[in-house]
């Protein structure tokens, strides 16, 4: 299946792409359109674009929305959603020390990647690592 988002991916989109490929659609194919572009390719599921189903809702990031929409129940994924929330949006309560660094690292991955597709691919390692580490800690 095809998935589409805006160009210049960051912390939230890298998390979503990792989640999609690993838990939702193993053969996911990612497409990109310039930010603000109104016309989306037909037959592709849009994500992290304002106003679409898979986007920010109630002040939470798109990764958080995806867990709800696809009914993924896993305390470690919930914790990652909290980290991405704190990394990607303005939050009063900051409980995840990984958040700030994760945002910077994901921005850096985009900087050193030739295009968005490669950036998403490289981001997957970061989320694999984050998942493994959080899974090894006592549940919170």
């Amino acid at each position, binding site marked *: 299946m095809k998935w589409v988002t805006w160009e*210049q991916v960051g912390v939230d989109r890298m998390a979503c792409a990792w989640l999609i490929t690993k838990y939702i659609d193993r053969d996911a194919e990612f497409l990109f359109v310039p930010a603000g572009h109104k016309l989306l390719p037909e037959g592709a599921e849009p994500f992290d674009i*304002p*106003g679409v189903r898979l*986007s*920010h*809702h*109630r*002040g939470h990031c798109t990764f958080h929305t995806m867990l709800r929409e696809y009914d993924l129940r896993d305390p470690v994924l919930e914790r990652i959603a909290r980290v991405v929330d704190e990394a990607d*949006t*303005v939050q*009063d309560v900051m409980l995840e020390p990984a958040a700030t660094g994760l945002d910077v690292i994901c921005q850096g991955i985009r900087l050193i990647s030739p295009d968005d597709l490669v950036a998403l691919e490289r981001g997957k390692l970061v989320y694999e690592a984050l998942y493994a580490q959080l899974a090894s800690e006592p549940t919170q």
Partner: protein
Amino acid sequence: MEQPQEITWVLLVYKIPREPTSSRATIWRKLKRLGALLLHDAVWVLPATPWTREQFQWLTVEIGELGGEAYLWESHLLLNGQAEALVQQFQAHVDAAYQEILEELSQECTDLVTLSRKYQQVRAQDYFHSALGTHVRERLMRARGGFVT
């Protein structure tokens, strides 16, 4: 940093139902947290960066979900000197917060954990890289003792 008159600004204008008051407060706190300035009790403004654009964009979505209405604009100031004055307002806002940290640092017993967290919060709102911020950072580094570099 570009010349003040060349700066692009993002503006957010919104209204939100009076009740529940918690929704209004949530949006207000997020705007304050971003370090946005409220001009004439009407327009919230930030210098445009990919990050501020994205934050205002998601706030616009959130305000809509809370039953409100928001417009997000990008603009330039046209009259001479107005951009400089606006930059100065942003600077004055963070400098006041930096000054508070400096005053607390000069007390006998200071809570360095709280102060360094406060520094990070102010730093995130310091869009024009105040010199006072560099000074606060150096003072915090020195206050922790041990080797400075």
